[in-house]
């Protein structure tokens, strides 16, 4: 898919924003690997939705304002973006670190949101203190990460020497920014667990059935901790169902997102 991002200025930062399709708004928040191979999901969703897919501050070509140093800060920046674009009834979709940002937004304000889909989220600590809930990307090789994070590791291989300078720069930038936001505490915000009562949105937790990077047993905690949330698996996908099963992921999102309309119509009737 051809990616033609536009840029918007939010909180003084130039943010790369992909906009595709027409219809009700859906904000897609990418994982720590950035927008890499997210195109198929965006394509599938664009048939139904007005998809907005920003690169987080410090990722892709997006600037990072000096004061943005945490997922919490990114969440405020995206709430500002929704205000700025005056969007309402937004379906909020996040993958992995993007789902962490989504959760962080939802506990602050759901005024402009209608439903939330968390795809293999990170961001909340549930397990014992002696062990990370999520495999440590800073302590495993890239090969091992791919084995854990993908149902089909073959589709995740990068041929570094063949990549352009621009592509390598984006990979290096994404990696540095992830370390800035998620190095320690590793991939979570200690406060977030105690704020989950603030999630007032119908929430669907999608989980790649083959995810061994953040296993489904960890994912079940999200469904248990968020009132009314349900957990649904995506077959033949690892930590990034939007990459490995874009069609099935888009269908699950759309079915859940459309249910929001049905609910609202019922409420109005």
């Amino acid at each position, binding site marked *: 898919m051809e990616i033609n991002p536009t840029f918007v200025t939010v909180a003084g930062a130039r943010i790369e924003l992909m906009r595709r399709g027409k219809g009700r708004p859906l904000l897609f928040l990418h994982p720590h690997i950035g927008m890499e191979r997210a195109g198929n999901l965006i394509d599938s969703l664009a048939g139904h939705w007005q998809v907005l897919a920003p690169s987080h501050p410090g990722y892709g070509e997006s600037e990072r304002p000096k004061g943005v140093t945490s997922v919490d800060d990114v969440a405020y920046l995206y709430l500002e973006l929704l205000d700025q674009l005056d969007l309402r009834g937004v379906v909020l979709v996040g993958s992995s670190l993007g789902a962490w940002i989504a959760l962080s937004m939802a506990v602050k304000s759901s005024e402009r949101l209608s439903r939330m889909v968390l795809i293999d989220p990170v961001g909340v600590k549930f397990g014992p203190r002696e062990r990370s809930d999520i495999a440590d990307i*800073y*302590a495993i*090789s890239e090969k091992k990460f791919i084995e854990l994070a993908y149902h089909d590791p073959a589709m995740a291989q990068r041929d*570094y020497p063949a990549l352009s*300078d621009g592509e390598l720069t984006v990979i290096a930038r994404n990696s540095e920014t992830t370390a800035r936001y998620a190095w320690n505490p590793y991939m979570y915000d200690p406060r977030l667990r105690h704020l989950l009562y603030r999630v007032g949105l119908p929430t669907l937790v999608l989980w790649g059935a083959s995810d061994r990077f953040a296993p489904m047993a960890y994912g079940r905690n999200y469904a248990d901790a968020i009132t009314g949330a349900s957990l649904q698996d995506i077959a033949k996908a690892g930590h990034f169902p939007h990459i490995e099963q874009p069609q099935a992921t888009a269908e699950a999102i759309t079915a859940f997102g459309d249910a929001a309309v049905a609910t609202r119509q019922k409420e109005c009737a």
Partner: protein
Amino acid sequence: MRVFHFSEQPYPPAWLPELKSLRVDLPSRYLDPKIMADLYERYVDEWILADQLGFDVMVNEHHASATCVSSVAGVTLSILARVTKRARILTLGYPIGNRLDPVRVAEELAMIDVISRGRLEMGFVRGVPTEIPVSVRSAVTQVDRFWEAHDLILKALTSIDGPFDWQGEHFQYRNVNVWPRCYQEPHPPVWITGRSPGNVREIAEKGYVLGTFLSGYQTREIFDNYRNARLELGLTPAGPDRFSYLGLVAIAENRKEAERRAKTMMKWLNSVPLVSEPFGAPPGYFSVKDAARMLRAKGGMKAKTKDGKIVDSLHGTLPELIDAGIMFCGTPDDVYHQLADFSEGVGGLGNFLSMAHAADLSHEETVDQITLFGKHVLPRLQQAGAAQAVAAA
């Protein structure tokens, strides 16, 4: 020229050929504390001998490593402060961008300065990439933290009129009031390691001693950046005492024996890259530009020889390492001439950090090296340094 005897305090029995990682993730069950106790004792004995022979002494710090079991430089410094009599005691250094509590650093350094009756030389380092995985904080803001910690430590060491508050970007304190105050006025001399022009300029502006390690003859460019920065800033020109360089020393009565010792010590150079893959280049340590380049092709450490040839600093042959000024090797006369050449080549070196022990070089060999250097090389270097100072005056 001042010469500092240095050992990394390694634990060589754990350098097993089957181990691909000697740091960060090597389990400590590979270390026998009874053997380590003997090693710590002998390393201190070697520093005592160096002190007696007119050397100054240097210690460093690494974490979770078999190649340097000095996880708290302050512990060794404290011992040396008490058991040496006259040597300057240098740490190069404290990794203050990784330390969580700079005020505690100031307290440690102040105590050591007083116990040694003012012999501390206070070196600060950013630390190598493999220190990051064992640090609480990431590499991303490490340089900013380094300089804020530096500012706070210096203020803490020089404030003698009661408590102050610190509300910085990375560190926040109330009632900073370090006891004891420093023995040296206003504080122990500061050393900082640096290589990039920007960093060297900052060190030059402050007039600190610049530390360089194993950078061979391109050290000239690094020192020139310092010298030029001083001139550009309208500051007093930098003399040789503002520069230091760390090299390996293999010295013996005859060249054959010196070369045998050098080959033993080269095992340390070879061991430097031995670390599990994810720990070698933590995100944020290198600039985005360099990190992107390294994704395509891993670099490796290179050094320039006197004649401008590029050699592999870690896996070069012995003659290459000698030509590059990474290894100083031969009879006392050879080593003197190599060092005098090197000093001339870099435009005047005031402080040589002599790594005369590395890998599994034995105590007897190390003692012999320190003794030969101390008796036959050190006096000549000191004389040459004095002559240089007279010539400059």
